[in-house]
Structures are given as structure tokens and as C-alpha cells.
């Protein structure tokens, strides 16, 4: 009996070893995640503030700039492509994948020490696309991007001429944590939790193995498909998340406990603040609380849509005219 078992074990091992002919490696860009701008030179790229960014701009270069800020932080701008429509209305629409995510250049976690770098990136990108000192700049931020827009205005109250903030988790860190907890709630017996955790025995990556960590993060993000607390019709389109950037942002937030509202009273321009009907983790009360520090706010509820209200037809069709009127009014 013992001999049979050992023979079987040896045979299985041999088959397994012989099976290893052509190798697909999880640590190689292009296999499980797309290549970034540092690996694929055909991608639209700008180099500013010491980093290569995946970026595109649409519309006349001299027109008022709408700088689109994606969420995540580990998402990318692909899911906000609907915003290109503003280019047909006489605006210069600028998209970029933030440092360390999407198809932009990757950095080790130690590279990220504060959000000042994110503000500097925004300043540099605005400067890159601005053709004159009088050219107006609007911010259009979604989720984390809306938090970033708020934080940028709080840091530089005179730098932009208007802003649309779509469901920022919060502008003080406590609100952000509460929103994250509410939007990612999972029962221990749920399929969503299993989808998030069971994969850890199949794939592991070291701290700065971006290809592996980004892929795992993509899998983790898919758990939202099972819970649907945020009310989206389906998963958003995405090129590649930036897991290290995401973790770094959360660590910075938890360590520095930021409050991005201290100077918002200086920004007297009207802000368009959007929240969605179907995101059960958000709602009017949270929208009022988060938007309260702005002295001049127009609250708008997008009906028939969830958190990614700018990505899907119903949400976009219900929100776009309001945003367009807002931008045209400034």
C-alpha cells in the first residue's frame, strides 16, 4: 500500500514538472494587466513633475479647461470617457491617470509620503495644457477625484475657476472612513467576502510587485459586483488599478488624518455637488455634511443611477445637462 502511494506521488510530481514547458508569468506586464506608459511607448503620455502620466486632451487648446479627476484612488480615467462630450461644447477636456495608477508610471510605496505630490501633479498638468494665464480651469472630480478636487481647492483657493464634485467620500478623514466602511460592508458568509479573500491562497505579491498587486486589486474590486451597495448597473470600465498607490493613499490618510475643509470658505465660486439616488451608502444627509464647508453649493441628485453616475447612460444623461449648464454659467 505504502509503495503504491509513493509511486503515485512520484508520478504526479513528474507529470507536474514535465508540464512546465511554456511559462506565462504573473509578474510580467501585458499578461494579466496592461503595460504602462513606461513599457508601451505607443500610449498617449506626458512627462511632468518627474513622472510619466497616461493623459489625453480633447477640444480646442485655448478653450476653458475641464480637468477630469478619476476615483479610486486606484482607478483610471477610462470610466469617465463620457466627459469627452464637453469638448463638443467648446471646452478643453483633460484626462490623466493619476501618479501610480491606470496606465501611468509606477513607483514604490516609499515614494508616496503626502498628498502634496498629487496637488503638484495637478498643478503641473494644468500648466502643461494651459495656453495662456487667463485660460479658465474647472475641476470635475468623481469619488476620490472629488476628494482630491476639494483638497486642491482647500490648498489653493484661487487656482481654479469652478468645480464639480461627484460623491466625494468626505473632505475630513473621519467622513472618508465612515463612507468606505458603509460602501464596502460585507457579511462574513457572503460571496463578496469569499471573492475578496479566497484568492489570497492562489496569488501573493511582494510590496512593490505592481503587476501582481494591481491584478489582485482588480479582483478585489470586483467584489462590489456581488454587494452592489453603491447601486451601479455593472462594473465600471478600467484599464489597470494602482494597488500600491491606493494603499499609500489610505496609509497617508490614516496617519495624517487630513482635514481638507479649513480654507474652503475662501472659495466663494459656486460648486456643483452631485450625489446619486441608488448609492445606499451616500444619500442626502452625507451629501449635505460633506458639502457644508463650501460657502456656495448647488446640490444635485442624479436619479436612476448609483455611485458611478457619470459612467452609465441613465446617470450620464441625467447629470450631463446640469454639469454643462453649471460650466457655462461660470
Amino acid at each position: 500500500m505504502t509503495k503504491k502511494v509513493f509511486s503515485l506521488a512520484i508520478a504526479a510530481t513528474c507529470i507536474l514538472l514535465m508540464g512546465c514547458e511554456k511559462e506565462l508569468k504573473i509578474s510580467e506586464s501585458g499578461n494579466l494587466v496592461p503595460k504602462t506608459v513606461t513599457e508601451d511607448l505607443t500610449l498617449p503620455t506626458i512627462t511632468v513633475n518627474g513622472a510619466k502620466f497616461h493623459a489625453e486632451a480633447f477640444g480646442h487648446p485655448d478653450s476653458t479647461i475641464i480637468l477630469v479627476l478619476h476615483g479610486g484612488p486606484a482607478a483610471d480615467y477610462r470610466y469617465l470617457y463620457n466627459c469627452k462630450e464637453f469638448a463638443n461644447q467648446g471646452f478643453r477636456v483633460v484626462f490623466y491617470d493619476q501618479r501610480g495608477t491606470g496606465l501611468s508610471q509606477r513607483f514604490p510605496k516609499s515614494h508616496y509620503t503626502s498628498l502634496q505630490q498629487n496637488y503638484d501633479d495637478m498643478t503641473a498638468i494644468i500648466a502643461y495644457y494651459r495656453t495662456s494665464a487667463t485660460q479658465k480651469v474647472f475641476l470635475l472630480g468623481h469619488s476620490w477625484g472629488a476628494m482630491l478636487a476639494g483638497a486642491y481647492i482647500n490648498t489653493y483657493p484661487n487656482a481654479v475657476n469652478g468645480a464639480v464634485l461627484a460623491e466625494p467620500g468626505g473632505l475630513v478623514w473621519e467622513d472618508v472612513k465612515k463612507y468606505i466602511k458603509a460602501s464596502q460592508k460585507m457579511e462574513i458568509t457572503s460571496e463578496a467576502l469569499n471573492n475578496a479573500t479566497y484568492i489570497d491562497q492562489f496569488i501573493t505579491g511582494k510590496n512593490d510587485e505592481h503587476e501582481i498587486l494591481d491584478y489582485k486589486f482588480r479582483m478585489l474590486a470586483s467584489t462590489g459586483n456581488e454587494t452592489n451597495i453603491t447601486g451601479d448597473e455593472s462594473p465600471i470600465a478600467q484599464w489597470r488599478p494602482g494597488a500600491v498607490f491606493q494603499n499609500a493613499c489610505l496609509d497617508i490618510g490614516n496617519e495624517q488624518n487630513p482635514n481638507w475643509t479649513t480654507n474652503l470658505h475662501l472659495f466663494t465660486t459656486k460648486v456643483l455637488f452631485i450625489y446619486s439616488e441608488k448609492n445606499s451608502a451616500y444619500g442626502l444627509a452625507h451629501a449635505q455634511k460633506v458639502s457644508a464647508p463650501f460657502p456656495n453649493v448647488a446640490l444635485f441628485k442624479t436619479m436612476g443611477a448609483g455611485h458611478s453616475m457619470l459612467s452609465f447612460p441613465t446617470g450620464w444623461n441625467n447629470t450631463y445637462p446640469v454639469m454643462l449648464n453649471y460650466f457655462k454659467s461660470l
Partner: protein
Amino acid sequence: MKNIKIIILVACLNLMVRQSFSQSVNWASLKSNNKHIVHVTTGLDYGLVYGLGYSHKIKSQMPILLNISYSFTSGGKLFDDFKTKIGGQARLYSIGNFQFSASIYGIYRRYENTLVRLQNFGSEMTGVIGYYKPKWFVAGEVGFDKAIVTHFKHSENFKTDFPNTQDGWYEPSTGGNFNYGVQTGYSFKNSDLILKVGAVITQDFKTTPLIPYYFQLGYNYKFKQTKNK
């Protein structure tokens, strides 16, 4: 050719494996006529899992158990994520009530979400050292679980976002985790109640899985073999 070999391996494992989980036994309560042991378990093993297992004690100088086990996760889709193991454990050394045992398993496991289906062949090795009495035991354990080769098959959802995704077998190893913890048990009549708790850390010793702990509550029933003739 590679696929054929892997299909043969899968077929072999499927034939051999019916059920699974890492079985813990009280070596001191194991009698010579306990040839067959059935295990039922539940706990945290990268998620909330339920498991069944069977061990067969073979005739040998040192106590050896051959194990097969199967565990699956809770959730809306019960059989999309599961793990099967086949292998054995042996009590290698004993001094009085102190005993050292080791186990080695081959693993086939599956994971599926809306974006991908993963199938993995791996291995698990564990060493256990403890104090064993006929009625109870307490022991420490250290183990390593290696995901040796993994097959990725992505959904249309994923391919819409990334059409150039490479489906297929990924090697060398796609992952590995160490675990360490304690196990204890109480034995009565033909039964053992087993409790295992511990921590999991990835093979770089710096990062942890999302659930960095494991926990297992188990029940063993040892069948007595009656003498023939």
C-alpha cells in the same frame, strides 16, 4: 502536450480525491484498530469554509495516516470556490508524551468571481510538535502552502476591459503563504474535538492575506475495525 499532461494529472487527482481539510488527530488516542477516521470541520481558511475528510491508517512501524479532504466556502455560490487535498501525515518521533508529526499534501483548488476562474495545483507541508495524552493534547504547528501552478480563464467582462489578457497556465509559483499556530483537542470514546487557531503570513514575511488568521473547529470519528475470523 503540456495540456494533456495537466489533464492527466487533473483526472488522477479527481479520481483519488473525494473530500478534504488538514486533519488533526490525537496520536495518543489513536488505537491500533482505528483504521478509518472521518473528519468534519468548519472555520476560517481564507474565508468561511466547511470541510469533510477521511483518513486511513496504514499498517507500518510508524503511525501513518493517508488523508483526503474537501472544503468549500460559504456564500451565494457554494461550489465555485473549493479546495481538495490528498496526502498523508506521520508521527515521526516521540519522547514520552511529546510527539512530532509531519504532513504533506497535494492540493487542487478552484476560485471564481465575475472576472476570472482560477484552478491551482499546490502543495502544503506542516510540522506539528506537541504534548499528547489519551484524553487531550496541545501542540504547535508551522506550515507552508505553495500555489505551484495556476490556470487563469477570464470572463468576457474582463476581456472587454483588457482584450489581450493571456489565459492559460501560469508558472512558476503564483503564490505561497506560511502559517503558524496552535492546535488542541479533547478525545472521548471514538471521537476527537479539535480546535486550531493561528496566523498566516505571505512568503515574503512582510505582507499578510486579507484574513491573516486561520481558525478551525473539527470533529473526528474513529471507526473501530473488528477482527475477522
